[in-house]
Every structure is written in structure tokens, then in C-alpha cells.
């Protein structure tokens, strides 16, 4: 769980940008939560407040989260550029105005088609990701999505 205006310099500091994504991921959230990379587990969901992912266009921010096994992001709102980057990398980003009702450690279930986040206490609704974008997310992101499209074009 993170607060408002978590920026991409905090998610992945600029001085590591010259390295590989595996290396960058080890420094994820370093300025504010130095143990994040060690503690995060595959399938974890990162929850933020308003304007999550503000700042730089570096897509190593969502890429590092994906690299560490983060399965989805939920926030009250995302910075537009970060939101596009997340979906393009196949990391679903859910805009849920009730994100702050989620507690640290909650086991969550997300129904992307219905637009429902189920916490142990209640069901929170959200505007589903538009179908054409969700298809890209399910394909694993824009690159595999384009790969599929180009393959279709050559075989047809």
C-alpha cells in the first residue's frame, strides 16, 4: 500500500536506468521502501492513492513491478503516461476510487470483466479497462499483441 503521487523516480530511481531490468527491479521503491524488492511475492497486488506513477515516461517503472511478480496495480487514479505504459507491458492497472478501503495484507480477487475488486470485507467496483486494451493486456502487452497481429497478417 502506498500513498498519493508516488512518482516514477521513487519506483525506479534514474541512476539505475542504464542497467538491465533485472538489476533495476532490485532497487524498486528504494527511496521510500528499501525492502520492497526483497519482500514482494509473485502475485502480489500493489495499491496506491491518487496519481500513482507521476513523472517520467520511463516504462522501467511498471516493467520492474512486473519483473518482481506484481500481478496488478490498483489506485484511486494513475498518471496517464504510467497507465498507458502499464497496459502496454501487460500489467493491469485498475482505477478504483475506493482503493484506500483496501488494507495492507488483504487477499484480493479482481474480476476485470465485471469491474469488481473483492476484499475479505466487501466488494469494490471499478470502471473495467476498455475491451480492446484488456485484450492487449491478456496477450501480455503491446509487443506480443503486435506479434500476434503481424503473424495473422502474414498467414492470411
Amino acid at each position, binding site marked *: 500500500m502506498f500513498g498519493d503521487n508516488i*512518482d516514477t*523516480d521513487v519506483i525506479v530511481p534514474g541512476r539505475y536506468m542504464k542497467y538491465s531490468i533485472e538489476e533495476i527491479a532490485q532497487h524498486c521503491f528504494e*527511496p521510500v521502501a528499501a525492502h520492497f524488492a526483497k519482500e514482494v511475492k509473485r502475485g502480489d497486488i500493489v495499491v496506491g492513492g491518487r*496519481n500513482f506513477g507521476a513523472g517520467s515516461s520511463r516504462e522501467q517503472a511498471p516493467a520492474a513491478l512486473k519483473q518482481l511478480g506484481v500481478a496488478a496495480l490498483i489506485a484511486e487514479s494513475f498518471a496517464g*503516461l504510467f497507465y498507458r*505504459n502499464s497496459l502496454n507491458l501487460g500489467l493491469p492497472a485498475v482505477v478504483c476510487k475506493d482503493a484506500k478501503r483496501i488494507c495492507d495484507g488483504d487477499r484480493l480477487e479482481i474480476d476485470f470483466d465485471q469491474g469488481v475488486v473483492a476484499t475479505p470485507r466487501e466488494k469494490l467496483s471499478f470502471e473495467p479497462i476498455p475491451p480492446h486494451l484488456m485484450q492487449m493486456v491478456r496477450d501480455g502487452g503491446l509487443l506480443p499483441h503486435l506479434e500476434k497481429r503481424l503473424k495473422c497478417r502474414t498467414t492470411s
Partner: protein
Amino acid sequence: MTLAQKLVARAAGRGSVTPGEIVTCKVDLAMMHDSGGPRRVKPMLERLGAKVWDPSKVVVITDHYVPTYDDESRKIIRLAREWVREAGIDNFYDEQGICHVVLPERGHLRPGMFAVGGDSHSPTGGAFAAYMFGVGATEMLGVLVTGEIWLKVPHTIVMDFDGALERGVSAKDVMLFLIGRFGMDGGEYQAVEYRGPAIRSLSMQERMTLCNMTAELGGQTGLIASDEITEEFLKIPVERWQSDAEAPVLAHHRFNASDLAPQVAAPHSPANSKAASEFQDVKPSVAYIGACTGAKLADLRMAASVLKGRKAKMRLMVAPASARDVKAAEEEGTLAVLRDAGAEFLGLGCGICAGYGGNVLGENVVAISTTARNFKGRMGAPSSQVFLASPYTVAATAVAGRICDPRELLH
């Protein structure tokens, strides 16, 4: 329609578009730099076996890892140089300055265009009445392969400034004020349009600063209608692109520019802004003039107007934004004024701004900077503290030894 709608409609090949609908736009120009560009898109293009859709519409500019300083940065720059040759991209500017400043100065932007840039400060291009916004490397790959990109047609938020900025107050102060007032998501990822007599009278580079920091205001792009000042800068006749007077907008905020005082944003957010005079107890040890936001020719001139005949009482570093601006500043004597004040010059490029280069701020350093972002750890050690201000205010602070309202020295 608003200016934003008109630009998007043209790119989508439509007579009109409505805010909120999703459209596919043809891209007139795609700009990349060395960090998010060739080194990221080359392997993806190879995986797809695809080529760049139209190399004449692509511009590559090295700025993040120049001057090179270690093996990694040398490798990144070498790859950029090799890739532009392979891909047949002639529009390549190597160590000529920061992409957002070099792009328009070399005549690549014209009013009416629809453009993407592989950097979050790409809204800078909106100063030329072009719809320009930032994308990540994978989305850039999509553009390079297809020549198209999807867009949710934006609403327009109007920032309307009557009056005129006082001497010593600049576009940077306008933006720090707006970000403080509306927050880093005040732009709601919509189009922010700057209007009014105070905006019309600004030079192109000052207009670029407004649109540049629309990124920190959370807009997708920042736009300004084209006029005779646009034409004079581009040195070619340009089409007039502007909003229809009756076009509905999401919000229309009106201000009087004459009331605005120089602003300073405290660590660690550009939204922590207040009048510079409220920070006069802060004593930085570094004054930094750099970045696309704050080291263009117009910015260097602002700093020089304060520094003329004075000496900096702290470390004053200048990383100019473009080679052409350096040449002009040298010829007119602006650089000599900075040098005489004790400034040390860094190479052409993004410098310390994003912490990518060889120089970064050390532990517990307090700095005042003309850059756009003071996020924790961005410019160096997480314990460093960065105050954001205009070139006037940074120069005045360097001279005074404490944060200083530049009007104290200019009047």
C-alpha cells in the same frame, strides 16, 4: 471545437471529434532520445522483424547519457548512433542539446502536427500548437511499426492569464503556481490550454516552459494557439490553429499575471510551491541552472540579468539546453556574465536533472534548481533536498546565499 479537438480530429482523419471517444491518430512525428529510444526499441523491432514505418518522420536526439562517462553510457550512445544508420534515420542530433529544445529549433515542429515523444516532457511541443505528448518505449515501438496511436479525445482545461508578468517573474513561476494550486494531477491527463494577453506576450521559449511543465501539472499535453510569435521563431509562414471562442471546455480558470510573485517549490514535490519570499531562511549550497525546463537561451538570459556584475556565493552550475543556444549566448555576452559570476559549465544534455549522468547531488546537499522535478532521490542521494525556482530566482539565490526573491536585485 477546441484547439486540442481540432488537432486530434485532423490526425484521426475526421471532421470532428468528441471528448471521451477513443480514436486512432496518424503520427506526423516521433521523437526519441538515447535513454528510451534506440536501445529499447531496437530489440523489439528485431523480435517483430519489423521496420520503421517512415524514417523521415522520426527524429533521434542524444541527451540523457551525454557527455558519456562510463562503459554503460558509452554503449548506450554507440547503439543509438549505429541504429539510426541501420534504420535510415537522417534526423539525428548527437550531443546538440536536449530533445525538447533541439526539436523545434531545428524546424521539426509546425502548428497543426500530431506528434509523440519518448519522454514525459514532450508536451513542450504543444507551445507550437502541435498536439504532442509523451509515451513509453513500448508504445513508441507501436508507433514505429504502425505509424498510428490510440487516444482518448481530451477535454480542455483553460488557464487564462490577463495582465502581464512583472520583471523578474517568468513562465516557470506561472507553472509552479498552477501546480501548487491544482496539484500534480490537476491536468487530469487532459489538454491544458494557456491563453490570455500575458501568454500571448511571452517568447516561444517561455511558452515552451509552460507546456513543458504541463507534465508536472498532470496534463497529457499543454497547448498554445499559433500566432506571429510562433511564425517569427520558426521563420516560415505558419497556419493559425486556435480554439473556437464558443467551444465548450472542462474548466476555464482566470488569473491576473500582474499579481504573481516569484515561486519556489519545496522538496519533494513541484506542488509544494509558495512565494519565494517565504523561503528566505533556506540556504542552499548548490544553485543549478539546467534542463529543458530551465536552461534555454531565454533562461540563461534571465539568470544573466540578475548575475551581471555580481558573484555567486555558492556552487553555481550551468548545463545549457542546446548547442545553438550556447552559441547565441556566447556571441551576445550572456555566457561571459555567467562565467564572471563564477558559474561552472557542464556538457550539453540533461545533466543532473534526472540523475542519469556522471554528476549527481551528494548526501544532504540542499540545492535550488531551474529543473522541473524535485522528487526524492531524483537528482542524487535520497537525502538531498531540491527547491525548484525560475532562472531569475536561482541566480538571485546564488548571489544572496539564501533563497531570494529576484525582484530585490532587479529593481
